[in-house]
């Protein structure tokens, strides 16, 4: 498509919208309303369910994640995470190999104290077990929030059969809105990481006879390791 026809399609569509709405697009009050909403991003109705603190919030996160058919373990400190991951793989009868990105929180963990065979980088599709560190959790629905970068490559969230996500208890927020506040603090107002993945349980499909089956195209299993206390 040439530049000129693109420009005119855009102009055509916008002018039809304006004609339908009976506006010119230049009305200052209207522009003010839009600019105000975009910069102020007001919260709407946030359900009470997630409005908990401390251990109660973590307990809700855990219950919701279990309800979404994830498995959950809690460890007291980051140093204990590798042993928990090794235990999970052993008990699930899975090979002791993991792949992870360059996240400094993961890098600082004592992997050498386990028998785990650790490789690093994005997945090309040959990895059975992926490990990621979450940006945040959401208690309301037991959801994990992952942001894309070399620290936690997106491919690790979807290609491995088994996905293990580590989340700090202190990063478990009440609701999605709190996560967006944290994203704005870290990445700047109006900016986003290239990808934000919200993950709630393992992959599934109900497309054959409306019967839910786990392990569609993404991970068949999701194991969550909560580190520390809130």
């Amino acid at each position, binding site marked *: 498509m040439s530049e000129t026809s693109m420009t005119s399609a855009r102009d055509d569509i916008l002018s*039809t919208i304006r004609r339908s709405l009976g506006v010119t697009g230049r009305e200052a009050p209207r522009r003010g309303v839009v600019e105000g909403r975009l910069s102020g*991003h007001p919260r*709407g109705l946030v359900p009470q369910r997630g409005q908990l603190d401390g251990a109660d919030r973590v307990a809700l996160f855990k219950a919701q994640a279990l309800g979404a058919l994830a498995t959950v373990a809690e460890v007291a400190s980051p140093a204990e995470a590798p042993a928990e991951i090794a235990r999970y793989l052993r008990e699930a009868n899975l090979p002791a190999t993991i792949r992870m990105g360059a996240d400094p929180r993961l890098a600082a963990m004592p992997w050498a104290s386990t028998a785990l065979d650790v490789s690093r980088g994005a997945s090309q599709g040959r990895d059975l077990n992926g490990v990621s560190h979450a940006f945040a959790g959401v208690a309301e*629905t037991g959801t994990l929030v992952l942001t894309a970068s070399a620290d936690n490559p997106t491919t690790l969230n979807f290609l491995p059969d088994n996905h293990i996500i580590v989340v700090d208890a202190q990063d478990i927020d009440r*609701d999605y809105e709190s996560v967006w506040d944290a994203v704005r603090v870290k990445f700047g107002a109006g900016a986003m990481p*290239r*990808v934000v993945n*919200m993950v709630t349980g393992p992959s*599934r499909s109900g497309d*054959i006879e409306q019967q839910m089956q786990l392990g569609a195209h993404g991970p068949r299993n999701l194991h969550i390791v909560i580190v520390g206390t809130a």
Partner: protein
Amino acid sequence: MSLHPTTPQFKDNAHRALGDAQLQKALVNVRAGFMDKRAAAAARLPEFEALRDSARDIKNHTLAHLDLYLEAYAAKVEASGGHVHFCRDAAEANKAVIDICKSLGAKTATKGKSMISEEMGLNDALDAAGVKPIETDLGEYIIQLRGETPSHIIAPACHLTKDQVEGDFRRVHTHLDAARDISQPPQLLAEARAVLREKFLAADVGITGANFLIAETGTSIIVTNEGNGDLTQTLPKAHIVIASIEKIVPTLEDASQLLRVLARSATGQDMSVYTTFSTGPRRPGDVDGPEHYHVILLDNGRSSMLGSEFEDMLRCIRCGACMNHCPVYHAVGGHAYGWVYPGPMGSVLTPTLIGVDKGGHLPNASTFCGRCESVCPVRIPLPKLMRHWREREFERHLSPATQRKGLGLWAFFAKRPGLYRFATNLGMKAMALAARGKGKFSRMPLASGWTDYRDLPAPQGGTFQQQWKQKRG
């Protein structure tokens, strides 16, 4: 639009669907599956009804400022290194996608589920341009193997039984052991996963739809349970998002509220498994993700719906709750509707997009029971909008002569209340007399459409108006 509508033959389609034993067997799953799950999810969240109000208000606010939010969105996408292609109609949108594919020398394109793709007839256009489209949502993959279209907007293969799917997999996956057991859904799913994994890794371009586009950040959102949309958009060198202009919402907060009603209304989940927010292409330092990020923004008549009596329809977030609760959809399934969008939302949208002369049967195929409106997460008054279509059809003299004469006769009496009361009273007494002893009619002149299938009860007691007067007394 490359998909040729069979909507004008709705009556024949419906008749065939009612007699199709396989379809009727599959539709039992639809009736059993969706309604209870939605009701349970709604009951678990005390604020659900208030969130529906909020969702409606967010969409109304956005539509009233759509030009400005579209401009803000496009600027943000460009700032993040992506490209936005405004397209007036399906032909322009198909061309934009194909031009991108050609510029990258693409041979195959994996696809996440998208109803806009169906509306565009994108797969045929890609095929014709030498790019092989590969549907990756399990239901979409199954119907692509069969050369069919989706019969439901979120459960595209819900018209099929597992035995039919097994037959298709055996027919197409001939490289696999013929003696394998794929009689049950878990085995069918595992086989599709293995077959499609290779396609994901080999694809040149990934095409997804979008549940929402966020003006604040220039972000597209996809919502899936399978993870197919994410593999589609993450692995190839280009991600093409196709979306219609009304998918815009202002902020991340607004999107969050809409997500709270979307999954609950659709599948009865509190949250779908994967909700993915994508902003632009791969960035410096990234080790995966697409190098190119394009958004195709399709109008296709929507800009003209604004300000019209059908504007409410632009709030639709495509959850499928209206069809999941529709007795007509339950009876005939989605294909009978004859074009892309089935169920109550399709009955309103289809005449808008293909014309009331072709789509006029659909708004008539409703009992106006009101269930669709009662479950719509953005409170679209679907029966009212269907009634608007009936009015337009009548105004344009598109409805059949007998129906018009009948309505004319009724109107004659309705405008003369005294005569109306007299005539109904007389008619009722005559019918009661004629049915004496039986209390019902098995045959009735001019009403064979009813009496061919069931008895017509004979009137008993007074007319409606008489009873009304008594009881209010």
